[in-house]
């Protein structure tokens, strides 16, 4: 094997989306038989770059060399002819097919379709790398981790020598991540090249041989993992040194603000999505909620906000001003507002629920307040002032307040949303995955805003996915799994492992 010729070499790759520069003059080398991490903040062009190798996009300029030969990749099919396979963040599987059927799907071979024979060859691959998978299981009954396994096997089955994994650990528990890394090492041993996109520094340190860092669409260099440390990588990624500590104050003046008792809720299909959830959120603290994505976090917050129909349970709100207790159960958002409950909610789906993408910042800021007054017409004056204040205070990068929010980057969209929700001086502030897709600087802006609200006496409910952040930011953390509370821990004393175990513990505490 020629070790001198790299598996992939990118030279001067550029990609533009209109005026937006996704990649500019990127040079990158993937050696044979190595695990390369592509590190970069969200929006730094990692996924776009990899999509060009996988045939989803074509570069506007620059060259791709595969095994030293100039290549032109127009489709995933072309990519496979170069033995390149990509596992996307959003899986592309057919729900009603079994694992084996999904794996062989789309392969054109002469002769009869013989699933039995195919299954055998799939099993050989699994055994070789240590995948554990039930080939007859239907996709819809699989966990996220199992689906990911199917995607990887699918790519291997097509004979890929170069695998690209786009943020594979984002949806996994710590335990599942360990398993994935084992498999990756086995593949590397077999001579495969693996590219992993991630922004989690600890994972980079753990799994990769080399790290290539992208910043604002440009490659800022690559280093051998053993020669570097997280601080250096962060500096490379962000361009300046960033203080990674979250300033956590002790909770003050804690009162019970929101009391949730025995909440039960089913989804449209009738499946139980929240069962017997009980907790109390206090003023002056950040109450974290941890769990694998889709464990009922979203429904829980939506129930409190009046957007979910409940089966049973109580949602009690202690009004600090009147001292009265209100039951919010099965009230509409409008009725909750009329009760004088100051509840703000930053939903996880920012542009699908919190904001309207095609409207400008002013109109989005107005969403909460447009009803004011008896006139049939809108008053855009106050919202305009508020929008400008949010832009100024939270450093929203935008041409002006009349720009549609969908044109803003993820971090700026989130700033607009959080800024609006904080503007009403909430007594309860619920945030779901508030830093998802945000760069480090924006993330810290959001953490600071939450801390400010906490110090101001608001009760914060924080749904997060990054356990390090949850542990560093929150005062208490509730872990849910399959819609049940599996434990409430003190954030100051707990460990990631403890939370990780609770996240996968089925049956809940009482069983």
């Amino acid at each position: 094997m020629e070790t001198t010729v790299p598996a992939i070499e990118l030279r001067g790759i550029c990609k533009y989306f209109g005026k937006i520069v996704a990649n500019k003059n990127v040079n990158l080398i993937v050696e044979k038989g190595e695990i390369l991490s592509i590190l970069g903040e969200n929006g730094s062009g990692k996924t776009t770059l990899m999509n060009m190798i996988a045939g989803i996009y074509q570069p506007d300029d620059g060259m791709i060399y595969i095994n030293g030969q100039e290549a032109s990749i127009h489709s995933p099919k072309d990519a496979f002819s170069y033995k390149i396979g990509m596992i996307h963040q959003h899986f592309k599987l057919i729900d009603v097919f079994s694992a084996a059927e999904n794996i062989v799907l789309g392969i054109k071979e002469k002769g009869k379709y013989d699933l039995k024979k195919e299954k055998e060859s799939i099993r050989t691959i699994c055994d070789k790398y240590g995948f554990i998978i039930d080939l007859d299981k239907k996709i819809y009954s699989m966990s996220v981790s199992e689906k990911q396994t199917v995607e990887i096997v699918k790519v291997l089955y097509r004979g890929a020598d170069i695998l690209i994994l786009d943020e594979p650990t984002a949806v996994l528990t710590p335990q599942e991540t360990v398993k994935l890394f084992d498999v990756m090492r086995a593949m590397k041993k077999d001579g495969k090249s693996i590219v992993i996109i991630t922004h989690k520094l600890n994972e980079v340190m753990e799994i990769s041989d080399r790290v290539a860092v992208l910043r604002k669409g440009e490659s800022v260099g690559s280093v051998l993992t053993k020669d570097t440390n997280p601080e250096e990588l962060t500096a490379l990624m962000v361009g300046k040194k960033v203080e990674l500590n979250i300033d956590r104050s002790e909770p003050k003046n804690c009162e019970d603000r929101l009391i949730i008792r025995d909440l039960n809720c089913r989804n449209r299909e009738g499946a139980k999505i929240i069962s017997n959830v009980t907790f109390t959120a206090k003023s002056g603290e950040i109450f974290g909620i941890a769990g694998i994505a889709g464990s009922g976090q979203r429904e829980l917050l939506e129930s409190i906000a009046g957007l979910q129909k409940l089966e049973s349970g109580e949602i009690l709100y202690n009004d600090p001003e009147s001292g009265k207790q209100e039951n919010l159960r099965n009230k509409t958002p409008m009725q909750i507002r009329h009760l004088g409950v100051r509840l703000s909610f930053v939903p996880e789906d920012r542009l699908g629920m919190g904001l309207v993408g095609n409207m400008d910042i002013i109109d989005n800021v107005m969403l909460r307040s447009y009803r004011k007054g008896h006139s049939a017409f809108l008053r855009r004056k106050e919202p305009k002032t508020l929008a400008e204040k949010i832009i100024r205070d939270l450093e929203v990068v935008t041409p002006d307040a009349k720009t549609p929010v969908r044109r803003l980057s993820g971090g700026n969209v989130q700033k607009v949303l959080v800024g609006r929700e904080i503007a009403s001086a909430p007594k309860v502030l619920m945030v779901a995955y508030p830093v998802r897709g945000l760069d480090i600087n924006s993330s810290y802006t959001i953490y600071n805003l939450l801390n400010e609200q906490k110090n101001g006496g608001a009760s914060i409910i924080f749904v997060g996915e990054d356990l390090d952040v949850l542990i560093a930011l929150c005062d208490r953390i509730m872990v849910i799994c399959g819609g049940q509370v599996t434990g409430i821990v003190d954030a100051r004393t707990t460990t990631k492992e403890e939370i990780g175990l609770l996240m996968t513990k089925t049956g809940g505490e009482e069983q």
Partner: protein
Amino acid sequence: MKKTLKILALVLSLCMVIGCFAACDNTADDETLTDGNVVSDGNVATDGNATAGDAADDVALDYSNIKVGFIFLHAPTDSTYDKNFMNAVEEVQATLGLSDDQVIVMSDIAESEACYEAAMDLVDQGCNIVFGDSFGHEDYLIQAAQECPDVQFCHATGDSAKVENIPNFHNAFASIYEGRFVAGIVAGMKLNEMIENGEFTAEEAKMGYVGAFPYAEVISGYTSFYLGAKSVCPTVTMEVKYTNSWFDIDAERTQAIALIESGCKLISQHADSEGAPKACEEYGVPNVAYNVNTSDMGPTTALISSKINWAPYMTYMIDCVVKGEEIAADWCGGFNEGAVELTELNTAVAAEGTQEAIDAAIEAFKNGELHVYDTATFTVNGEVLTSYLADVQPDAAYEGDTEVIIDGYFAESEFRSAPYFNIIIDGITAVVEG
């Protein structure tokens, strides 16, 4: 993914463009064809006519100041009804030697203010005669006629000219019931032949009729057809079904099949599509059609069609204007005027001796010896009709206002051109649905 979608979109758009061209080509070919016909006809006619006109009228008629505008409900390419008018227009233009500038045809004019606007637009273009071909055009033509007293407005199938008393508004129709009577004789003879061949008994001789609406024009039509058949096959009965539309291929087909299945041995229709004739050909049942020769659609079943030829009326109205004469308020043409015709008999289907019978009947009509609705030939509720007040005057009351039984026959089209015979006579069962 997005990329492929974009490419797909591009390919589809290209296909559209190409498809568009392909489609264009076809239509265009037809277009040039029809166009060519018009031109050549026109050429032939320009020289020939002047002398012919002279000979006929002993006066040299100068058509150079004539401009005629026609308003059609549909495009002649789409509807057999309008096609029949268009044929007449082309014939008249050719024989009178009118240039293309002198004949303006507006098609697809709805029975709404669009008709008024079209009529006024024709007047603006300098037409001295405006002709509308659909019943629903009448109100709008009257409106235009009142505003433009110097222009003659002629309207086919309408019934208001006599009442409205507007000097420049005229109705016209043809005594098509006479044609249908003759067609009925053809049908009756075919039935007789089938009875003789032992296909069914004389008592089983039942005809089916697909009508558009339960409207006097239709009732008058099928009654004459029935009486024609009955004049040669006395035991015949007839069942009528309506489609409630002038043009509905599916409904006409369905009703024709329903009639066949209820035991009708022969089908005729008063509607504009080929639904019934084609169904008859499929089921092998003889068919008598209307307005167009259907022998190509039903080579083994089509017998004959009666049709109105509008060319005589169009020539008449133009001549009147040229000569400065009044156009009759209500014109009704028959065999004598050439306004009623029968298409060529399909001898492959018709019974022997049919042509002779047709010729004899036409001759009798021309001489005025034959009356379709002779009260001696039919009964209503078992009794001979001796007196009937028909709703001749169009008014809101819809009541009979004119005695129409004269000299032992029902005087259809004598008090106005549009039919008013609306009695269901014995032997006919008409089911009004919906």
